[in-house]
């Protein structure tokens, strides 16, 4: 059982107070959907949880390990707004490097992951030649090889077609059914079951 504790979080951007005294606990199996209007601090919250941004105040722990510790960072999979893909590399090369930043993964598993997101045959295609949706699928293929417990997904469904959304939602459901935690933001309708909503 893992538990991600967010205690009294306070975030400010410039002169804007995005949120304050935010506290919640995400336990194994939880799917948290973070909602809010544009500029309400959804991305900032995910970045703080990923360890990219530092909050003004507050404490974040995963099973008593603080946010900057190796134990915390190795359990987090963060997917931001940006594609995190280099145009000059192929799908497999990009995925190999990005997943390798956390752990080494056999290449055949990466090819398998690309197949699962519907990119069979695109393994050796340069990412410059892929469409926006296909690029999103490449990075989402990382979910199929990730062992991280905490998934922080910022707008994971952007540019995906309905079939792509379904694949990702199924993957998130499976992950959480196996004891993982997922926090995600989306402006689209999500059919994920048992999702808890955090409104900012």
């Amino acid at each position, binding site marked *: 059982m893992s538990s991600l504790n967010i205690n009294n979080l306070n975030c400010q951007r410039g002169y804007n107070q995005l949120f304050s005294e935010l506290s919640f606990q995400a336990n194994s199996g939880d799917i948290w959907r973070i909602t809010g209007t544009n500029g309400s601090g959804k991305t900032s919250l995910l970045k703080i949880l*990923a*360890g*990219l*941004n*530092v909050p003004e105040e507050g404490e974040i722990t995963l099973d008593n390990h603080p946010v900057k510790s*190796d134990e915390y*960072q*190795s359990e*987090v999979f*963060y997917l*931001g*707004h*940006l*594609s*995190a*893909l*280099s*145009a*000059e*590399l192929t799908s497999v*090369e990009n995925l190999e*490097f*990005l997943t*390798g*930043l*956390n752990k*080494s993964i056999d290449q055949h598993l990466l090819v398998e992951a690309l197949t699962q997101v519907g990119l069979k045959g695109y393994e050796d295609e*340069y990412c410059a030649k892929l469409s926006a949706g296909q690029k999103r699928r490449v990075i989402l293929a990382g979910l199929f090889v990730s062992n991280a417990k905490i998934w922080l997904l910022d707008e994971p469904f952007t540019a995906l077609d309905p079939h792509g959304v379904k694949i990702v939602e199924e993957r998130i459901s499976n992950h959480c059914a196996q004891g993982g935690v997922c926090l995600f933001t989306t402006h689209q309708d999500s059919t994920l079951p048992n999702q808890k909503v955090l409104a900012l």
Partner: protein
Amino acid sequence: MNIYLKTLERDLRVAIRNPSSVLNPLLFFVISVSLFPLAISPEAATLSQIAAGIIWVVSMLAVLLSLNALFHHDFENGVLEQMVISHHSLPLLILSKITAHWILTGIPIILLSPLLGLFLFLDGESVKVLMLTLLLATPSLSLIGAIGASLIVGIKNSGMLLSLLILPLYIPILIFASSAVSQAQFGLDITGQLYFLATILVVSIMATPFVSALALKISLE
């Protein structure tokens, strides 16, 4: 160590597939140096006297020109974010990117320098010293430059800012390196200058990846 080699391999692969970003600073280096004889004098005596200075100043500017790209693409496409949150040591990942930068910029400059040295009538012995100073000091240029590159990574149109930040830090290297070559031309001892360049290199290797990592984290916030 494995991630160091993986990052290095990735950066080299990206650069080879997009050669213009690597070739531009080198072309600048060769073209700029070859313009001096036209503008100053084709006389061997005049050129050989200023050859070391010319090659050193231009190679510094060529490195500076290439530094903008060091973190820029990875910042724009989000790879840098993934590097920062990776549980691998960020300074090690940065050191790997700096190594790739040196392989793609420093080594070609070292290899081109004898040709340009002879072009400016440097004698064989001085060309050897020139190459030695470049070998000792171009890694320092990449290492020190990485601090500036990581500080300006989120700022648009920051080329001028990078020069202002980094060039003052390059000046000691320029002084020791070009004076080593000038002294070698007169057959004087250059051990002192080489020790200084080596010291700068050792201090840069030890300190700059950490400073650069800190600067990158600040830039990404």
